[in-house]
């Protein structure tokens, strides 16, 4: 009987030890992934529900495009993680754009903006696609004229900006403020971080360790929003010449072919992946890091091919899928006339 107990305890400690180590690791790791509970707004654009509502209206208003046919949601579709389910979106000129639309999730915590980080603020960023001839092809003069025709818009703008009324800055401020309220929902992963052990599968839990360890993913996709807000050349095959960050940082070797690390939240809705939308699935993405990284001068020092078993790969994918929140309803505003 005593021997039997010893055997049990022995076996128990044999299997329990790595589990304990893992548990200790996981605890420290998990603390790094706690979500913020509040959205911080810049002093220049403090939160008000009226401003957010106006921003949302403008976000969905096609009158902001040159031909009244595109709105922000045309390329930042809420159903696809505020992206489009094609390699790259098609703009006002009916030709595919150079890069995929970046997600708008958790943009309140992201700066600089764009794949190449050319905008410091969301306000600045918003102006880009609206006025870009390949994208929405709008002109602010025209836009302000159009909006001024609507007594409601006029009223709203004058209510919020009694002195200035409908201006480019105010439009952009409203849109940016709205965009700051677009938050990825509470994913199973977040619930697990909060202490619900049953929220994710054991495979996902193992995948979390791989994500932080063998996969080296957390090097760039760090923190609760899974981004370091930095630019890296991840050694993707160059199909069409795109300098990336190098367009704005020409003297940095590593800026060439480098693009901003995107968040991994709501990944399941956001395929295809990468800045050019060339990887169709999460499997393709993981495969790229296992065997597809091209070593060139610009390639980020943090990026090398990683060695993962098939099980580790599937665990990692299970983890990545646990970052997707339940779908949240997005109600459409009634646009003023």
């Amino acid at each position, binding site marked *: 009987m005593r021997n039997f107990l010893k055997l049990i305890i022995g076996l128990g400690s044999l299997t329990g030890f790595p589990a304990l180590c893992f548990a200790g690791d996981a605890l420290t790791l998990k603390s790094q992934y706690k*979500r*913020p*509970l*509040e*959205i*911080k*707004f810049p*002093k220049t654009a*403090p*939160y*008000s*529900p*009226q401003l*957010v*509502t*106006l921003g*949302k*209206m403008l976000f969905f208003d096609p009158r902001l495009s040159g031909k009244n046919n595109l709105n922000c949601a045309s390329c930042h579709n809420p159903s696809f993680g505020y992206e489009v389910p094609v390699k790259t979106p098609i703009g006002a000129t009916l030709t595919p754009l150079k890069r995929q639309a970046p997600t708008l999730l958790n943009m309140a915590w992201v700066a600089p903006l764009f794949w190449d980080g050319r905008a410091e603020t969301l306000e600045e960023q918003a102006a880009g696609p609206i006025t870009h001839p390949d994208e929405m092809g709008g002109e602010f003069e025209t836009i302000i004229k159009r909006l001024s025709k609507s007594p*409601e818009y006029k009223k*709203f703008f004058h*209510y919020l900006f009694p002195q200035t009324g409908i201006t480019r800055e105010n439009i952009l401020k409203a849109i940016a403020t*709205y965009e700051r*309220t677009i*938050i990825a*929902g*509470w994913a199973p992963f977040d619930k697990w971080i909060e202490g619900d052990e049953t929220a994710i599968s054991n495979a996902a839990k193992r995948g979390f360790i791989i994500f932080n360890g063998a996969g080296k993913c957390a090097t760039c996709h760090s923190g609760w929003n899974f981004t370091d807000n930095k630019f890296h050349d991840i050694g993707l095959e160059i199909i069409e010449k795109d300098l990336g960050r190098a367009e704005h940082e020409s003297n940095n070797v590593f800026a060439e072919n480098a693009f901003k690390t995107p968040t991994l939240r709501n990944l399941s809705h956001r395929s295809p992946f990468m800045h050019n939308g060339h990887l169709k699935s999460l499997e393709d993405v993981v495969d790229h890091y296992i065997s597809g990284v091209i070593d060139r001068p610009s390639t980020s020092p943090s990026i090398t091919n990683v060695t993962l078993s098939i099980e580790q790969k599937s665990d990692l994918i299970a983890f990545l899928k646990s970052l997707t929140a339940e779908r*949240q309803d997005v*109600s*459409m*505003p*009634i646009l*003023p006339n």
Partner: protein
Amino acid sequence: MRSKIFMSIFAALLLGVLLCGYMYFVTEKGIHKVEEITNKTFQTVKYAEAFHNSFKSIDTLTNRVLSMTSFITKEEIKDQFDISHKAFANASKGMSDYSLSPLIQQKFEQLNHQKEAWLRDSKLLLGLEKSETIPILEIYKQRQENLHHTLDEFLSLAKKETSDQLLLSEKELDNTLLTTFVITLTVSIVFTLFAFLLARGLSKPLVNLVHTAEQLATGNTDVTFTQKDRTDEIGAVVRAVAGFRDGVIDRLSLQENFKLQTEELKEALSKEKELNELQSEFVSMASHEFRTPLAIIDASARRMERRKEKLSSDDISKRTQKIHNAVSRMLGLIESTLMVARADKGKLSITPKEINLTELIEQCCENQNEIITSHIVTHELEELPDLFIGDQAALTQIMTNLLSNAVKYSPDNFMIEVQGWMRETDVYISVKDHGLGMDEEDLSNLFGRFFRAKTSTGIPGTGIGLNLVRTLVEMHEGEISAQSSLGKGSTFTIRLPIKGENSTNIDQEPQSLKYASQM
């Protein structure tokens, strides 16, 4: 007694009024308590509803604003929020007034805390308060859900507590009812006991009286009256029954007298009847038995009268002898009849004297031989005692009767044998004939008065002879027995005890023959 009854009725009334008062008081109290709790419950529900409604309206407002589907100005939001918030605060205050238990208090504090946080969040989200940060909508929703949950818990707790309180009050009411019931029961029992005692006080002397009266009815006058001194109605009844008892005693003594008189009358009557019977018997016997010798005497006398010239002295002596015989027969008859009557009356007596029994028997046989020529009486006497105590006349009567019977019932055989012998202290004398004899049936009735055997047909007789013989023998403390067979003759044996000097002398009574004097 009457005053007791009145007093008990008064006491019952008083107690009843008191009991009603108490029951009213207790029930009123219970109902008041239930009312209070119901009121409290009602208030709680009211406040909870108001709380919930205000909560809902702020929630709706927040949802409306945060859905960002239409433009709502701050003033509009503020107005709606203020209205809802006011109602909310009111309800909240009302609920804080409602305090039942520490548990629910704790829950309420938790609820309040969550509510304050949620309200702050709501204010932030609605833009009613300025801040650099606002809660993430999902977090807000989560907190709201928690608040909702706490509210539900609080309400269910309050509901449970209220229902518990209601149950408690119901229990209290039940207890009240039980108390009332117990009191009523106790009072009923006390009253019943009281009534029982009262009834017993009334009925016990009555039952005693009934018992006494029953005893009196069965004639037992040996009864006592315990409640005679009571001053109430019972006492009066007791005294009345006592008077009745005295009457009964008088009546009973009278009855006793009557009984005695009746007894005497009855006795007299039966004596009279007996005399009458004897008289008729005597008359009938006289008509049969006395006529024959009289006829002989008459016939002899007439014959002698008619032939007085021709009669020789022989003839005359022959005739006179006949007359003489007839007379002696009549005398015998008269004598035996009288004796029987005396014996029946218990007035027949013997006078025992020292007699010579042998001589007596021999004399009787000789006498018989002298009178009766048709038969020969032989005697054979064995060492009979010299001294025998007995009545000479009675013994002679016995022997004469037995011998004459032997002659009478043996018409065809002249031998009559008399034997005498002694065994131990007894003398035995037997008279044997060889005449008609009789059967067993007749033998068993032989010594009955007026009994005559079937074989005696045509032979004159009264049926009293043997009866007399037996009486006389028994008077000598002896006994008589008979053996007989039909056609062969009979043997009568008497046994007489030899009495010494110590033998009792029966006092001689003067012979009184009442019936004779009444003839």
